[in-house]
């Protein structure tokens, strides 16, 4: 029997309005929860990149990725297990400054987790860490007794270890046919200038 496991799905797409929805509903249609989703540019102009993390059976993921790749504006979709990717997540932690200042233990703790202070104010300090989920979550647990005020974690971003071939193709592809620009609604603030009926 196969079991559900964590898969990171990487989708290369055109940069088009509505594509996020088109991709997201492919998961919700099957009642699959998206654990994390990140959209960003890729190394190639006009090509966008989605990184999506889900827990599923491999057979399900395989079929799903084919369906994603079928979408008109999707260039390519991959799925990988953790050992096939290099990945990071980032987290921000807000803690009361007085506690940090008083308790040396906290400082050591932050050292241990490789946290960096982003902002230090009289009332609070914001730390940042980058790493794998377990590490980020470990620090929350450690900070909780010291009055953690706020915590936020980013989506996973991942690099596929064996991506060289595809990268070359993608670059060639973009040189050959540059992508189209996104056309946004330019009228949303023109309400008073247009006569309607």
């Amino acid at each position, binding site marked *: 029997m196969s079991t559900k496991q964590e898969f990171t799905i990487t989708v290369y*797409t*055109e940069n088009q*309005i*509505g594509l996020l*929805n*088109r991709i997201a*509903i492919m998961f919700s*249609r099957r009642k699959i929860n998206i654990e994390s989703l990140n959209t960003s540019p890729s190394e190639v102009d006009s090509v966008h990149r989605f990184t999506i993390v889900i827990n599923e059976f491999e057979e399900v993921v395989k*079929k799903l990725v*084919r*369906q994603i*790749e*079928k979408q*008109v*504006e*999707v*260039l390519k979709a991959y799925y990988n297990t953790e050992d096939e990717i290099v990945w990071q997540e980032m987290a921000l932690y807000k803690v009361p400054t007085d506690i940090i200042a008083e308790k040396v233990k906290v400082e050591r703790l932050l050292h241990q987790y490789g946290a960096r202070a982003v902002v230090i104010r009289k009332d609070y300090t914001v730390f940042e860490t980058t790493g794998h989920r377990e590490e980020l979550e470990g620090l929350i647990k450690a900070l909780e007794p010291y009055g953690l005020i706020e915590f936020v974690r980013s989506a996973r971003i991942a690099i596929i270890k064996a991506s060289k071939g595809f990268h070359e193709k993608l670059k060639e*592809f973009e040189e050959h*046919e540059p*992508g189209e620009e996104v*056309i946004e*609604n*330019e*009228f*949303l*603030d*023109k*309400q008073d200038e*247009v006569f*309607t009926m």
Partner: protein
Amino acid sequence: MTNATTLEAKTPKAIPHSSGKQVDEVTGSQAVLEAFIAEGVDTIFGYPGGAIMPIYDALYDYHDRLKHILVRHEQGGIHAAQGYARTSGRTGVVFATSGPGATNLVTGLADAMIDSTPLVCITGQVFAHLLGTDAFQETDVVNITTPVTKWNYQVTDATEIPSVLAKAFYIAGSGRPGPVLIDITKNAQLQKFAYQGYTPCKHIRSYRPKPIVRKEYVEEAAKLINAAEKPFILFGQGVILGKAEKEFKAFIEKTGIPSAWTVLGLSALPTDHPLNVGMLGMHGNYGPNVLTNECDVLIAIGMRFDDRVTGRLDKYAKQAKVIHLDIDPSEIDKNVKSTVPLWGDCKETLPMLTQLVEKKEHKEWLAKFNEYTRQEVEAVIHDELNPTSEILTMGEVIKTVNELTNGDAVIVTDVGQHQMVACRYAKFNQSKSNVTSGGLGTMGFALPAAIGAKFGAPERTVVAVIGDGGFQMTLQELGTIMQSEVNVKILILNNRFLGMVRQWQQLFHDKRYSFVDIQSPDFVMLAKSYGIAGKSIDQRTDLKTAVTEMINHNGSFLLEVMVGKENNVFPMVPQGCSVSEIRLK
């Protein structure tokens, strides 16, 4: 360097304005209609409304070049466009306004999506500056229709219209076809812009309509076929959509392989062809279902192993090697694991296969199918087509239609018992003759689809076979038939029940007939009020005369045939059972 010829092929020439005059400026609305003309559109099915009024205003000046059929409901409009696409093999075109007009398209879009029907739907939208303000008749149609369109897009600036429509037609009609929706805000319809002509789209960088055929898979497939002793072909609509009927026939005739069809594949091969062994699936024929679990090589061509075809998957053709030909790679291994995944356009892959396969006959194997046919005739078919009781059967009505149209008619069916009976017994000599809602099972599909089917194949007789339930879902389209003088023959098989649900309630719910007892109006009087001739019969002696009258009548005609109230469709593969557990009664 690219040479001149390939460069030219990549960038098709712009098509000038249809008036033939040099036109410097057009409105967005005119650009939509110019795109239609350049794409060879001749018929639009639509319904006007506030947000699409600029397009309708422009249409006023184009009525000599574009025929517009005013439907009675947008769902009727989109089903008509589907019927048009199915009989003509071209892309159907629909107009609807924003809000309710657009949401009324959703059922048709879902139907076209699952049955791979090429459509371009244009919806009007409120002014771009009003988007998101809950303006009058504003609805987020792009997001509502995302899961049921192959592609959709919102235009807020008229300059985009020519290229977006070119993409729309290209996407709808290429590869595995499907519906495309373009939502155009009212300001873009009104906006004037410098017109550069219309350039058809031949390529989109992120879109691969046809996967590249892998020669080694063709060779592997041919090897399996040549070694097979009991090969069996399942064919679907892919053969029709790929315009590969000839290539398909050549392939089966060389290999001598018995071939069975899915509901949407029906008519791709003449029903009387000696290698046509019948229908697959829940209400399909006995032999094709049972022998699916006995064949050694299963060759699926342009079909997607729908659950109504396969029954229980873990007991489906487990003994067989499976060769799956499909243009959509995501269909391969989706439901049934293939031994050879032969992706590609079957118009290309079938001739490649035909070349590599040996000429063969499979007499003994084919005789097995014939033996099962004999058993099915004895247990089911004979009595359905030649009943001895006074009660009329659906089957004998279809048989009469066959006799009087010689299998040359287009048969459009709705959904339910009559659909299964019509598919089982209708005879077809040519392709694109069977129009039905297969995947979505949309009741109410047939009447509007028949209207479109007639426009798609004006020289052919179009018979819409509809149940008393489904007819009442879209009967408002009688108004369209009246106004546009559409010559469709409406054949209502009235069993005074929602028959298919009743059959299941009888077989699987202890005859607890829960809300299936449906009453109907006087259909003949109803037709009369629309100026449509009609007749209702309940006697066998009147059947032939009445069907003859319907077919020969100059114009549309409604014939209601009162059939047995509690007749069942058999054979049947009960849900959750294997195809080989098909029941004859």
